[in-house]
């Protein structure tokens, strides 16, 4: 888009406001808070609902943002062998990349297992991370059905769901991970 498409403030007063603004921020101190918008140009372009749909990749732990589609553990197992096993090892036991499969019980000091079944608090994270990043040499190439299938396989391998369970936007959001309550927020509400 061109800057000409967007409204902007002009005239001598705008420049004056900008100069004052810049001076007031010259010290390396934290900003006191939101600056009044009148001190800066407004150059953004409005996003339409369609724009937001095409940009928005966020998936929340309650399942908001999960796309249509579905997959089974069985389909996921063969996809895992094709795309994931080389780095994550046979059955997700780990190789050059992380171990993914572990016991469905929270980690302990004696057995600090950080595999999906032991450590991950939300199953939606699996779908989200695969969709963003996998396979790394061609990320974004898997269909939603394939991602649901891989997610289902990893949940079965970690003994979280059954072999026959189908994963989709509704069922994946309902999966409760064993370590959901295993975290303490430190610097956040």
């Amino acid at each position, binding site marked *: 888009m061109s800057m000409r498409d967007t409204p902007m403030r002009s005239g001598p007063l705008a420049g004056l406001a900008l100069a004052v603004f810049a001076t007031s921020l010259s010290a390396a101190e934290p900003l006191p808070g939101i600056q009044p918008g009148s001190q800066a140009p407004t150059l*953004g372009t409005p996003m339409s609902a369609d724009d*937001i749909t095409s940009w928005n990749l966020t998936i929340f732990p309650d399942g908001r943002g999960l796309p249509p589609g579905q997959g089974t553990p069985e389909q996921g197992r063969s996809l895992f062998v094709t795309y994931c096993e080389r780095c994550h090892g046979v059955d997700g036991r780990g190789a050059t990349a992380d171990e993914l499969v572990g016991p469905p019980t929270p980690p302990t000091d004696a057995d600090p297992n950080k595999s999906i079944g032991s450590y991950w608090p939300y199953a939606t994270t699996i779908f989200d991370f695969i969709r963003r990043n996998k396979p790394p*040499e061609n990320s974004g190439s898997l269909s939603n059905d394939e991602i649901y299938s891989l997610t289902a396989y990893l949940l079965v391998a970690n003994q979280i769901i059954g072999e026959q369970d189908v994963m989709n936007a509704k069922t994946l959001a309902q999966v409760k991970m064993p370590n959901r309550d295993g975290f303490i927020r430190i610097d956040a509400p």
Partner: protein
Amino acid sequence: MATSLDADDLQAVAGGGLLHRRLLLKSGLALATAMAAPAIAQSAEPDAPPAAPGSLSSPSWLHRPGKPFSSYGAPSQFENRVIRSIGANRDLPGNGVSWTPLESLEGIITPSSLHFERHHNGVPDIDPAQHRLAIHGDVSAPQIFTIDNLLRYPMRTQTLVIECGGNSNAGWHEEPIQRSVGAFHGLVSCSEWTGVPLAILLDQVGIDPKASWVIAEGGDAAIMNVSIPLAKLIDDAIVALYQNGERIRPENGYPLRLIVPGWEGVVNVKWLRRLHITTEPAMARNETSKYTELLPSGKARMFTFVMDAKSLITSPSPGQKMHGANVYEIKGLAWSGRGRVAKVEVSADGGTSWAEALLQDPVLPRCFTRFRAAWNWDGKPAILKSRATDETGYVQPERDVLVAERGRNGYFHYNAIVAWGIDEDGAIRHVYA
């Protein structure tokens, strides 16, 4: 070298021969410095011929025109060993880290070319004309900004440390790792960052009063995302376009990086493309599976954003060598994600006694602070430590205290006091002491 020091100067203020920091302000004082051991690094190019008689008083570059102008400078060929060390996944070379060679640098600014890296899937080659920043979610006016748009906003400059939450994680190991200070602690760097205060853009999209989180997303082939409390971003975050005066390097987020002062590196999202204003975190992979710290109780610390105070002695340090009993300058770096460094103390007797180091100006919040101390080494075995205190009163903990509190399975946020053991031969090793 010690001839310019009088008896009063050499009066130790702490065990092992640490001297008063005022000594460093004495005019004309020259102290010894531990040097890189030849096996680790050499200062001359390997095929340089031995100096012929007269060559040092009249070298060739006094007699021949030098090279012409260059449109973009580069370091001397004789500094070609000052490089980032790289640790990457052999199956996925774009997934890994590179460490800043802290032991080879002085002052507080990390050259952009030596800033540490952590990438999940390589460095994208982003055309700024094709890059956008989208801000949407719980806002009244969702908007997209071009890079040209952002370049026309008022800007702010801050010199800031960025430290990876996983920096220094070898400190959790049972045995002290033997690597250079940079290859151990070098996932921290300090740059001057310039960009648009994010508060300005957030004001223009009209934040819903119920919003409390922002999910920030990068434009690499991992589309890395992470959730950050809105209040912090309103307080002091910058959407940065410049690093050390020039546009940000690709490996540091070109064309746009979210700078969140004092918070762990992963929330300083590179290649920033989207800010989703929400009421809750996304619980993304990099805030659940990673960047959380398992405690002995079996519970894990989560959203541990602030990088607590830390200090390191960069000289003398492992890989360097002491050259006999002498008065040495100890030097190092200290920083705190909570504000300014208030004090750095140095010990030469393993922490039994401490002397206050000189803090080199400027001392800026959430920025590297260079410290220096004078040390009259008697040539006997010694253990050097440094301990930072920040302006909130937080004191960098001893390793046994940190391990007792956190266990050894947390991996992230290791900021314990670091100890270097020096033997009678002048060799320097990392020790737990």
